[in-house]
């Protein structure tokens, strides 16, 4: 990868399914433009998409910031949503509070946060019931991309 540093922000609107995926596609384009390794791009795209969908499905609005250095991709997603009462439960594969119409679209299967964890090196989730959620994750660019080991920030 070139010795570049990049950052940017995307604004996300709750229930705006017509633009769902635009932020993560954009980020993927940025990473491809910086010649980041394909496997790292794959992991970042998966994690960013899941984070983006969580805001669109569950929150009123949110923002996705990305910061790319020669060592890391750091993504911070802050939303104005109802918050997560039990983070441990939310991280459990298969657990979901999504309504039926969201599930019928193939979302809300309880795989989003586990997918993010699986594809990132560090993950931090902070949530206040009634006050919104902040999700932050990091992918190291210079680590063997296979077998990402997640640590809590």
């Amino acid at each position, binding site marked *: 990868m070139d010795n570049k540093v990049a950052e940017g922000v995307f604004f996300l609107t709750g229930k705006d399914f017509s633009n769902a995926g635009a932020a*993560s596609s954009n980020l993927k384009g940025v990473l491809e433009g910086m010649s980041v390794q394909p496997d790292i791009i794959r992991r970042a795209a998966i994690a960013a998409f899941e984070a983006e969908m969580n805001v669109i499905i569950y929150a009123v609005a949110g923002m996705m910031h990305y910061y790319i250095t020669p060592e890391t991709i750091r993504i911070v997603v802050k939303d104005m949503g109802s918050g997560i009462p039990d983070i441990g439960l939310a991280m459990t594969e298969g657990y979901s509070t999504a309504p039926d119409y969201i599930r019928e679209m193939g979302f809300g299967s309880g795989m989003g946060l586990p*997918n993010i964890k699986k594809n990132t090196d560090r993950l931090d989730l902070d949530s206040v019931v009634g006050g919104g959620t902040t999700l932050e994750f990091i992918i190291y660019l210079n680590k063997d991309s296979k077998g990402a080991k997640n640590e809590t920030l």
Partner: protein
Amino acid sequence: MKLYEIVNSLSLEVKTPSLDLNKEVTGGYVSDLLSDVIGNSKKGNVWITLQTHQNIIAVATLRDMSGIILVNGRNPDVDTLLKAAEQGIPLMVSSLPAFELVGRLYSLGIRCQ
């Protein structure tokens, strides 16, 4: 195998006539859960699903898939067609149910890889 060979062999209806079907298909993935597809499909796969809404195009784009086949003769939403053409993701329809379609793709040599 090229996408146009699959289209011809299985008599798929192509919903995106402006797009090039001369794409290499690396394998196949079948699922209607979007998190499953984005997490487990591979680059160049053809995706078999019954989901017809526009977000399937975002998933296929993010995973660099070769195309999407809708099963049971399901028609894509208009927004889905527009997004498919815009993002360059070929969209096809089969009259077969998923089980039959996947069986035929397997017979053609397409694997989950």
